[in-house]
């Protein structure tokens, strides 16, 4: 087992499609962290995940997973990672028991007891065909499979999308448990920011194929704020402090990128804390600057 500081290292990755480019993106996920990967639909989250898992080839850049090259050391990496997709990629004719038989030969560290434990915990029937499972059950089964071979890195692409809040909460709780030994890391792409608000240590925000923000979630949330003022006051706000401005009948709400500094500069204005949803929303409109 090799030593590594970052579970994922992405440096200058570019992937070109007709009409979309993942443009020179870079970010790291330190070992033991949950990284929330956020962005609106079509922002490039799935392309990034497909690139780092070598489902697709990249045009440029370097990707390291668990300290190993994602292409050269692909075979070694695959034994130590787990992936959960937004849709269950298992055939409908199988049942939970069949999946254990399939995976136990594939993963050297497959733990059947842990798998059965998750199946029991998720209250999944062992002999019922997967085709008869509900969406929540399918996702639980995929997660049970992903967590049963002692993977050091768990990559999830919109895994909680489409699930009800109760199931989502249950799954998030399991992820927290899974990370407890400090040796495991999670990359979780989602556009449901409330989930990431609950569990993510770090956040990377992607939009139109470019990384806009990456870092520790608390720092990002603390740094940003929503300054509320009248439309007349707008002219007094420095352009460099503004991410974008949302106008309404009563005035303007401005996302500032340095809340502390803005608090000193604009003492007569109210600055509310921002959450990940707000940050995402204001950054998406950064080019328009003013929107309503």
């Amino acid at each position, binding site marked *: 087992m090799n030593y590594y500081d970052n579970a994922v290292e992405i440096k200058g990755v570019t992937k070109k499609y007709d009409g979309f480019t993942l443009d020179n993106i870079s970010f790291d996920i330190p070992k033991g962290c949950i990284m929330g990967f956020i962005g609106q639909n079509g922002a490039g989250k799935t392309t990034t995940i497909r690139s780092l898992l070598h489902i697709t080839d990249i045009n440029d850049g370097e990707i390291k997973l668990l300290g190993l090259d994602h292409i050269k050391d692909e075979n070694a990496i695959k034994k130590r990672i787990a992936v959960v997709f937004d849709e269950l990629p298992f055939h409908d004719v199988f049942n939970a028991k069949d999946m254990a038989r399939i995976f136990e*030969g594939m993963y050297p560290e497959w733990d059947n007891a842990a798998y059965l434990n998750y199946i029991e915990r998720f209250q999944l029937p062992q002999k019922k065909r997967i085709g008869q499972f509900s969406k929540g059950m399918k996702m639980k089964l995929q997660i049970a499979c992903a967590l049963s071979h002692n993977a050091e890195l768990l990559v999830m692409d919109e895994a909680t999308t489409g699930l009800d809040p109760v199931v989502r909460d249950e799954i998030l709780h399991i992820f927290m448990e899974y990370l407890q030994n400090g040796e495991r890391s999670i990359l979780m792409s989602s556009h449901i920011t409330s989930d990431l608000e609950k569990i993510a240590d770090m956040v990377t925000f992607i939009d139109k194929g470019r990384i806009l923000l990456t870092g520790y979630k608390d720092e990002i949330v603390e740094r940003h704020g929503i300054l509320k003022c009248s439309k007349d006051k707008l002219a007094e706000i420095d352009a460099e402090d503004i991410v974008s401005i949302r106008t309404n009948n009563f005035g303007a709400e401005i996302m500032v990128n340095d809340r502390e500094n803005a608090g000193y500069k604009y003492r007569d204005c109210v600055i509310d804390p921002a959450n990940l949803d707000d940050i995402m929303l204001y950054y998406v409109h950064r080019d328009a600057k003013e929107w309503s």
Partner: protein
Amino acid sequence: MKLYRSLIYRELMLTRKRFILMLILFLLLALLMMTPLILVFVFKPVEGEESPLEMIPLFVGIVALTGGFMAGTNNGLQKADISSGWKRYSFVLPPTAKQQALSDLLTKLCYILFFGLLSLAFEFVYTAAADYSNFGIMLYIYMLNIYLGAVCAVMLVDIAYSYIMMFAKYKTKLKLIGTLAFVGAGVVLRVFDLFPGMNNDDKSAKDGAMISQEMVNKFDTILCSKKTLLCISAVFVVLCILFFLAMWRSHERREP
């Protein structure tokens, strides 16, 4: 070994429905071929060329031909893997492209072996019932030649089909590529002149029969020859290698 057991288990489980259907069809045909034999024993035996016992080589040939076609045909696994999303998922699983291709080949060989043994068993029953023991090993060579020949012909088409299917990565593209693969496989059949009933009329015998007696005898000699068996076996090995390479390429190919 454990890895291959898992991979083959998955493939066999996925193809079992198709397999059962083929097995039923095969058994029905084989039993149908047995009916004249049963009738011979129940009713008064007919002697000479009219006797159903004289038809045994034909029965053996039909059963071997059917078994060969069923064993070598495409098992629909690629299509099922693409539409379920497993194809994409397999890129993040530990088995390498080579290991997956080898398991595809081993699964195919399992079916080939199974139907081969089944065809042999039926041949054994036919020949035992009709006392063809004086033919010795010749009838078995004849049966193996037909069986392996059928397997090779169908495998050739399957390789073409599988190679074209490699380009389908998404459910949406599956239909289009599937149609193209079907057409492509048809082209292979045409090129290798494997379409049934496509024989040139000019080649028919003078007495009006599709094939002259001379041709039939020549054909029989070829089918009963050990040299033919060696040649067909060599072609079969080459086709197995080609199948493995096509599947390897298919598993290795990344999404655009």
